């Protein structure tokens, strides 16, 4: 544990440094800043999703829905009620968290593909609801919103985003390293044993949804403020799929992994932009390639540098692979 900690600290520090230095490096380019902002938005969302899927084992393929909710919350509260920024941003998390609670309640009973479909339905429904609830959401034409005066400049606002991102990384890091995070992983690994060790499984599952939705909501809120406009088209099911891709590509159950995934999936399309019609193919190839050749995600590249002395009593990765192979399909789900 301690070893892990000392290993992780320097490069966490590096990351923060990079974060802070980025605006200076890119100077006045709004384009590069905007890529950076989207990286932050997706990184927060991917981390929140990873908390739910990677750590907690609860599949959600409708997470983009929470992003939309966060964005709309900010837009509605700002334009319709005229609330101040400092109140609206946390509220976007709170309201999305409440929605997460509502989704989490029925989800507690479901697992695997069943949960996937329910969350997919949520992801599909949010844009439809936004489209139809004209009076609140502005329907197809969306809602414009303005940043407060003191943040109207992009190069000022980016520091808010950096600050939020760093704080959220820190909080999520604290959560997953804590007893709470351990309880989430325990639920993922064995619900029966988790219950026997005194973990209130339904409560914790719901809690996971709430926490995940809360931070995703804040990411959505930041997005709304950044673009200055929210619409039903912003986050589709496709975004949810990409988010899934991010956490798997980066490395499941790893906060740095989620960040790496977010960076790749935000930067890659920008690099391939000029190749007409190829963006999706390239992203697809990247996904397939990474999963085939780095099944534990890109984060496993970093872990290679950490030399691991296997204890004599321990089988290594190969065995892991085999013991997975032994676990049959239906048996894996039916928990036989």
């Amino acid at each position, binding site marked *: 544990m301690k070893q892990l900690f000392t290993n992780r600290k320097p490069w966490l520090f590096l990351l923060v440094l990079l974060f802070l230095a980025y605006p200076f*490096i*890119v*100077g*006045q*380019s*709004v*384009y*590069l800043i*905007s*890529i950076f902002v*989207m990286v932050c938005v997706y990184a927060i969302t991917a981390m929140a999703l990873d908390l739910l899927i990677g750590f907690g084992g609860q599949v959600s393929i409708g997470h983009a829905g929470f992003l939309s909710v966060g964005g709309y919350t900010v837009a509605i509260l700002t334009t319709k009620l005229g609330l101040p920024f400092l109140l609206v941003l946390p509220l976007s998390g709170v309201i999305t968290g409440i929605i997460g609670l509502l989704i989490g309640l029925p989800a507690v009973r479901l697992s695997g593909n069943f949960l996937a479909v329910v969350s997919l339905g949520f992801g599909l429904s949010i844009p*439809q609801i936004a*489209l*139809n609830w004209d009076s609140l959401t502005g*329907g*197809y*034409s*969306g809602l*414009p919103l303005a940043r407060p005066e003191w943040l109207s400049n992009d190069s000022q606002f980016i520091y808010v985003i950096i600050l939020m991102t760093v704080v959220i990384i820190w909080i999520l890091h604290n959560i997953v390293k804590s007893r709470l995070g351990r309880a989430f992983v325990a639920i993922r690994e064995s619900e029966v044993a988790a219950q026997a060790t005194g973990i209130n499984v339904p409560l914790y599952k719901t809690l996971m949804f709430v926490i995940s939705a809360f931070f995703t909501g804040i990411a959505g809120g930041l*997005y709304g403020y950044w*673009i*200055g*406009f929210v*619409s*039903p*088209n*912003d986050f*589709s099911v*496709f*975004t949810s799929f990409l988010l899934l891709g991010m956490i798997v590509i980066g490395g499941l159950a790893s906060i740095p992994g989620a960040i790496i995934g977010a960076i790749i999936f935000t*930067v890659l*399309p*920008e*690099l391939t*932009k*000029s190749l*007409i*019609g190829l*963006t*999706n193919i390239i992203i697809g190839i990247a996904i397939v390639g990474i999963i085939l050749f780095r099944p534990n995600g*890109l984060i496993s*590249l*970093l872990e*290679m540098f950490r030399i691991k002395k296997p204890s004599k009593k321990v089988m290594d990765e190969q065995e892991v692979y085999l013991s997975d192979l032994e676990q049959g399909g239906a048996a894996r789900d039916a928990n036989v």
Partner: protein
Amino acid sequence: MVKKGFTLFIAFMMVFLLAACNGEKTSSNNTTGGKDSNELAQGVTKNEIMIGHSAPQTGPVAVYDTFRKGMDTYFQYINENGGVNGRKIKLIAYDDQYQPTKASQNAKKLVEEDKVFAVIGNQGSAANLAAKDYYINKGIPVILPGTGLKGFVDPPVKNWMGATMMNYEVEAQIMLNYAVNELGAKKIAIAYQNDDFGKAPYNKIKEIIKTYPGVELVAEVTYLPADTEFSAQAQKLQQAKPDTIFNFGVMSPVVNLKKAMYKIGLDKTKYIVSSIAGGDTHAFQLAGGDVWERTYSGGILISLDDENNEKIKLFKERFKKSYPNEQATNFVESGWSAAQVFVEALKRSGDNLTWDNFLKSFNTFDNWDGSMYAGVSFSENNHYGITKMYMTKAENGKIVQISDSIEFEPETGKISLPKK
């Protein structure tokens, strides 16, 4: 294995460095941007003009990319013939997958990294809305974007010019007017796509139908662009017994509703569909048989069926050359026409190409019919651009023009009655 991983890691870092380097380049160049109005605008050199385009190339509505192909074909044609004022046109097109986020990202890249002179034909209402403020602040000319929402052009914004399609509301007005006055519609039903394509014209019709005495709205049904099953809507329409049915949406659902109505025998009622859905014969193919017959629609471009028209011939010939595997549809033609308008404006701006000159040149368009559009007009107070439309009817597998051009006057909001 370790080595391979390391190389990957290095590659990953390189990406970052690359991004960083790009950044520095930008920051140093930025100060020398085209602020001085006597100098050429950004993206313009002695022999090249760079212009940008952001639209879906992949994803659910990737079909909009055919618009780019139309533009591209025309620019190739112009470049092969010496360009405009000695400058070749270079089109930089980015994929936004119909997502506002990406559209706004693209806008920033086009303007700051690629330093384009103008953007043309950006598709999608939401995408355009997301990037609107940025373009307006930067002063980049936005030429004929692919959205028919009124808010973009009315009230006019200095650097926002027109749209590639008929304004949704104007189109609705013209069609309702035609239906009532020429086709004798009394009991009207509306089907509309539940997004900008459908709701804007629907709202307009609802608003103005009161001004037509004796005409009533008997049914409204909605659908989503990706819908395929329309029996419920067809049933509802049948029960309302309308004499005219409007349908505002894109081609696939509009055709599918027609098929569903045909199936249950709701075939004699007049069916009027938006111009983006009914503009070309492709609808016949999709609907199959004589399902599509007698469908009314509107057109703002010269009909592709007009085989003898020299412009159409040139277009078809060039397009076949540039994109041999693609079908020349209405949407491709629309891209070609937008490019025509753009090139014409360039020509009219003269050699000293600045944003001001360029934007001012648009005000000289008065019912210009040099492009495929029936008429293009701009003025200080009119940024609609496309103000002329004619009605069409599907007959014997062809789209036939059945009225003269009907004109809309943005200043007064009036529409002229078609001359028979």
